[in-house]
């Protein structure tokens, strides 16, 4: 079932890749867009709060004045507040659904999943609380409905709904309480959003600028075309008849009357418990081995801890007596077994003649094994344009690209590839070009694999690709499991490009990493 949904999702995302490009595809930034919408709600809410008056009559009147007397500012901002809140629900639920479909919820990800489920409750509480503040017929319906819903729980000595029997039962203090809640609950929400991303190293909480601008523009246009309006003033002597319900937040409310409050508790409680149990209920039977530190080959540089996408590596005081201040320690519960740490380690040098062991390695994917695999793959290459493809197990199948002139090696994540391996295969013209393939850009299975790889190869993040490596012989291909055709096309284009390049030898660097000219002394 999930496999079928995965295929469907990949196709859908591919549709969006065409106009947005992989880097800007909104499907890859749903969490960050939710953050952006939250800040939009906060900013618009601050403006609204300046004009909001707490009181049975004043609350409604102040919102009406905002909506109609200054429609160009308060009215638009109120609508923006409403639609950004609705948008939050949409992107939040899509974010949840997408992570479920792609299997990103178990093992080391359980914490983010569980905290995310709790966030759903907080977002709904914030939204529903906000609707009360308008004190129109919709607010009346929600207030009475919420009270009737909670009265099903054996918690209160008197029914809460008795507080909404008549107009006189509601007083100004109630609105002071509501507005206090509408400030404190979002603060709690923000705290939980921070907790939600706590285990993510370099968590993406801001979407790409163009995506944020496009989203904001869409909401502003919507606010102008269809401004958010209130119902009639709340009147507890009259029952709300036909209601323009915000289905994003208030969909369970009609069920209170179609089913019963108890059934709605069973529904929302059941969904919550089901979601909370998913990380344990649907976890894979086996878990790959986690990264191991080899202190003999570690200088405590912290690259691995910096690059770990899930903060699974902590730098602690050195214990082995070697003259370095720190050593990495892997938390096995947080390790994703992606190997990005191996790619970050300066000891991941295939040129070494001693026993090839990196400072941090994945059991089953040791560096010596990787070099042996590369050597074996290169040994069989023939033809004028020989290419080495480094790929990723989570992306397009690079093994399918193998041919007489193409060797391919798939890693747990492309971020595991030490840049020195590109140097290694290009040196001495063992191959004429290298293709580095990984997940769709923005959708790296391990979040940061593509980002770090690009920065390392662009010599902007340690370990750098050595300057002597000609970048024109390297091509990236960010292609998902359904994008094998694109990988083939990228490879063909790279080979065609290389065929046009003059034959050249990879030159040595001097001690400072500057490329030497032929004839220079190293």
């Amino acid at each position, binding site marked *: 079932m999930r496999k079928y949904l995965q295929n469907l999702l990949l196709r859908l995302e591919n549709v*969006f890749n*065409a*106009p*947005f*490009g992989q880097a800007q595809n*909104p499907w890859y930034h749903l969490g960050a867009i939710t953050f952006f919408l939250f800040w939009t709600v906060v900013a618009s809410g601050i403006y609204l709060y300046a004009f909001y008056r707490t009181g049975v009559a004043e609350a409604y009147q102040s919102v009406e004045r905002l909506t109609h007397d200054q429609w160009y500012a308060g009215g638009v901002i109120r609508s923006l507040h*409403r*639609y950004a809140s*609705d*948008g939050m629900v*949409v992107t939040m639920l899509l974010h949840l659904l997408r992570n479920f479909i792609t299997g990103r919820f178990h093992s080391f990800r359980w914490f983010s999943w569980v905290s995310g489920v709790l966030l759903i409750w907080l977002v709904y509480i914030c939204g529903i609380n906000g609707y009360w503040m308008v004190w129109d017929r919709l607010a009346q*319906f929600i207030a009475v409905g919420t009270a*009737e819903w909670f*009265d099903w729980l054996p918690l209160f*000595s*008197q*029914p809460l*709904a*008795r507080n909404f*029997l*008549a107009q006189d039962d509601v007083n100004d203090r109630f609105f002071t309480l509501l507005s206090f809640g509408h400030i404190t609950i979002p603060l709690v929400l923000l705290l939980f959003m921070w907790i939600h991303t706590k285990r993510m190293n370099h968590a993406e909480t801001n979407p790409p600028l163009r995506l944020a601008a*496009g*989203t904001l*523009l*869409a*909401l502003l*246009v*919507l606010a102008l*075309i*269809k401004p*958010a309006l209130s119902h009639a003033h709340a009147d*507890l*002597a*009259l*029952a*709300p*008849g*036909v*209601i*323009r*319900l*915000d*289905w*994003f937040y208030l969909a369970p*409310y*009609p069920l209170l*009357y179609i089913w019963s409050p108890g059934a709605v508790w069973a529904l929302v409680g059941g969904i919550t418990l089901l979601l909370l149990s998913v990380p344990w209920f649907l976890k894979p039977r086996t878990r790959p081995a986690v990264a191991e530190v080899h202190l003999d080959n570690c200088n405590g540089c912290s690259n691995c801890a910096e690059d770990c996408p899930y903060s699974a590596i902590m730098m602690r005081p050195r214990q082995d007596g070697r003259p370095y201040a720190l050593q990495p320690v892997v938390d096995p519960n947080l390790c994703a077994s992606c190997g990005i740490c191996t790619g970050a380690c300066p000891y991941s040098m295939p040129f070494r003649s001693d026993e090839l062991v990196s400072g941090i390695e994945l059991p089953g994917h040791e560096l010596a094994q990787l070099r042996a695999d590369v050597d074996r793959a290169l040994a069989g290459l023939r033809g004028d344009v020989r290419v080495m493809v480094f790929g990723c197990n989570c992306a397009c199948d690079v093994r399918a690209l193998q041919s007489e002139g193409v060797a391919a090696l798939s890693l747990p994540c492309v971020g595991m590839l030490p840049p020195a391996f590109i140097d290694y295969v290009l040196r001495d013209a063992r191959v004429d070009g290298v293709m580095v393939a990984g997940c769709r850009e923005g959708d790296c299975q391990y979040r940061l694999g593509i980002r770090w790889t690009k920065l390392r190869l662009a010599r902007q993040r340690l370990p750098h690709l050595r300057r002597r490596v000609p970048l024109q012989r390297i091509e990236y291909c960010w292609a998902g499991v359904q994008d094998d055709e694109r990988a083939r096309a990228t490879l063909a284009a790279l080979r065609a490009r290389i065929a046009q390049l003059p034959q050249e030898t990879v030159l040595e660097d001097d001690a400072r990493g500057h490329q030497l000219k032929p004839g220079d002394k190293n």
Partner: protein
Amino acid sequence: MSQPLKYLGQGLAYALFAMVLGYFSTSPEYTHLPADYALVKLSFNHAAQRKKPCHERTDAELAKLPPNMRIRKDCPRERSDVVVELEMDGKQLYHVVLHPPGLSHDGAASIYRRLLVPAGTHRFVARLKDKEEGDFSFVREENITLAAGRVMVIDFKADVPGAPGFIFKN
């Protein structure tokens, strides 16, 4: 894909997002109370009579008690159930037996019940019994015209001087 087509595609995606938000933020409309219907809310808090009346303990009874509990007047805390009936146009609309809450069953019984009724003039009869024996202690009958969409609250207050009993607020 050419640049203009990309912008068109992005515009369509944003438009779809905005349309989904715009539509479902108010539509489809939900009919909470059908036209030509009114709502009756029966709701009150009432502490029923005690099951057993207070009595003066005899000296012999007091002597059996620990010294710190020798109080002459003994009032059993447990209260009677509250039986409530609501009738509309001769037909029973609602009947409930409310048990007093609390570990000693001595709390005030509470009820909140919403009843959908057709709008128009109806004869309502509300009855309440709050003691162990006998018939209903409080009865109120009234012809009431309920406008469509109107909420009528039926409350009960036993402590209103001169007129304890049901209150129909329409």
